[in-house]
């Protein structure tokens, strides 16, 4: 599928989940279906939503995030929204408590990252991404094994404001990691999935506004199809088209798209000449 403008300016929602058991309630909540493409990671898809099951640990999380980006790259012209969802240990939170992550610290590198503090009624957490399961709960924080790696890769593909992490507490000092079982994960993730949908909707609002502002007028496609533009010219064309729209001169752009020109250079010259005459 080629890059097409979405009528509603929505971004795709890309979900990265470590384990199939964690993914199941989300798949149901979002009505996703498996994509059997024989790819490196298990993947699910629904209307504007993609989910990849990464496997545990930082390397898997990073690889699956990059993989999901690569296989969905051409589905939309807008940067995707990214959410990492899953279970985590926590020193002080009750089991089943869903928490929004406000700070991620990679225990190995000591680097910290800060997602946009999106409004939420959920309790906030610092998330510490560890290399081996945390059994000490040494700090008042949530602990997982994927978050920092997910963040590092997802923020290469989208602005950091499009990336969030949502965790549900599966273990704490009173209920150690060994007490987690299939049934409990399902219950915890069901309640996370409801919150995930709310978070995704909130993020979509921000993304849609951003996407609208960066979208191109219809005449752009017509002009782009008529000539072959160099990379630099393509960039100039996109910017000029945006300027026509910003200046409320889309009618003129439409007209230009129907006029006869010999070369891409000529049409760009005409566009620039008209923009030169524009005053706010």
């Amino acid at each position, binding site marked *: 599928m080629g890059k097409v403008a979405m009528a509603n300016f929505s971004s795709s929602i890309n979900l990265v989940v470590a384990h199939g058991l964690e993914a199941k309630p989300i798949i149901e909540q979002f009505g996703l279906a498996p994509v059997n493409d024989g790819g490196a990671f298990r993947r699910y898809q629904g209307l504007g939503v993609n989910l990849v099951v990464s496997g545990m640990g930082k390397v898997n999380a990073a690889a699956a995030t990059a993989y999901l980006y690569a296989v969905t790259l051409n589905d939309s012209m807008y940067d995707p929204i990214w959410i990492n969802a899953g279970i985590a240990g926590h020193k002080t939170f009750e089991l089943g408590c869903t928490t929004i992550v406000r700070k991620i610290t990679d225990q190995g590198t000591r680097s910290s990252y800060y997602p*946009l*503090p*999106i409004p939420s009624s959920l309790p906030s957490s610092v998330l510490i991404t560890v290399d081996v399961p945390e059994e000490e709960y040494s700090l008042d924080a949530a602990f997982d094994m994927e978050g920092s790696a997910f963040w590092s890769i997802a*923020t290469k593909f989208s*602005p950091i404001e499009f990336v969030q992490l949502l965790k549900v507490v599966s273990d704490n000092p009173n209920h150690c990691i060994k007490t987690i079982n299939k049934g409990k994960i399902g219950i915890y993730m069901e309640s996370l999935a409801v919150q995930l949908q709310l978070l995704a909707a909130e993020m979509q609002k921000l993304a849609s506004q951003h996407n609208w*502002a960066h979208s191109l007028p219809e005449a752009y496609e017509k002009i782009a199809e008529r000539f072959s533009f160099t990379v630099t010219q393509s960039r100039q064309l996109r910017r000029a088209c945006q300027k026509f729209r910003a200046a409320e001169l889309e009618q003129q752009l439409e007209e230009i798209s129907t006029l006869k020109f010999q070369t891409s250079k000529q049409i760009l010259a005409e566009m620039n000449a008209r*923009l030169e005459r524009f005053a*706010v």
Partner: protein
Amino acid sequence: MFSAIYVEKEIKEHPRTLEILGRFPSLPVIECDRYGEVFNRNAQNFRIQKQLPALILARKYGNLVLPTPEGYGFEGQGSYYFSHMMNCIYDCRYCFLQGMYRSSNTVLFVNYEDFYSDLERHIRNTDNAGNYYSGYDCDSLALEPISHFCQFFLPLFGKYPNAMLEIRTKSTQVRGLLEAQALENVIVAMSFASEAATVRWEHKVPSLKKRLEALVKLQNNGWPIALRFEPIIFTDTVLEEYESLFKWVFSSLNAEKIHSVSLGEFRMPTEFYKNISKLYPDEALYAQAINVQDGEVSLKDNSGGATIEKLETMLSDFISPAQYYRCA
């Protein structure tokens, strides 16, 4: 106003930090090592963040008082600026801060005592004089109820009457000033643009009427005030718009007592302009033709400079030449 408060670990127990946190009990408080971790990282989008800006409480190190860029403010004795804050809670579409910073969070440096000492050192090294500007990369008064900037810094300038402080603002948070004894060497410089420009480009900023009311109160209380008409954005109706603005503003103020009046056209470093026009591809202001000269962008003025000269002539009906300067 804010979506969260980030606090540098080092100043989390600072009395100013605790006082500010006490004002926002329901906001998430997130600890960080240095404000740069949150404030100016790559891949941030100023425009998206501006919808949910956070406050960052931090400690400023290094040179706290810096020489002003060439052409900024008055000529003469040493000119310096200092920034106890970075960024602004208002949202003017033409503001160069959007091109200068990647983050739209507001940083407030709570170590006022260090600013105080550094300012005092500069004042002493400048024969107890010099021009000092606050509000170069923030709006000095916009966060006044939280920052208490005036309460802390005014006494320093009370001590050195030959050192001049200019507080550049569009805010009407002047209660701290009105409650204090007026100082002849502290000038409140209020920025104004035409009504049309204000409506179009100055989002979340107090109305022109409220700004003028604040200035009138300050002038009546003995504070020196100044007017900054900038940025002038060339439109077909710019002369008419500013003619009525000038008439309105000067009809409410005692023009003779105004410390200074300046005009400045829209101008910013090329790099900042590039960044802003990427952020706002849908903004007509950034679709307008531009001139690029010596690393600076200005809007194309089809009048060949006559517009600014005409505006200067209009101003001369209200003020003396000694009161006027044109921003470089």
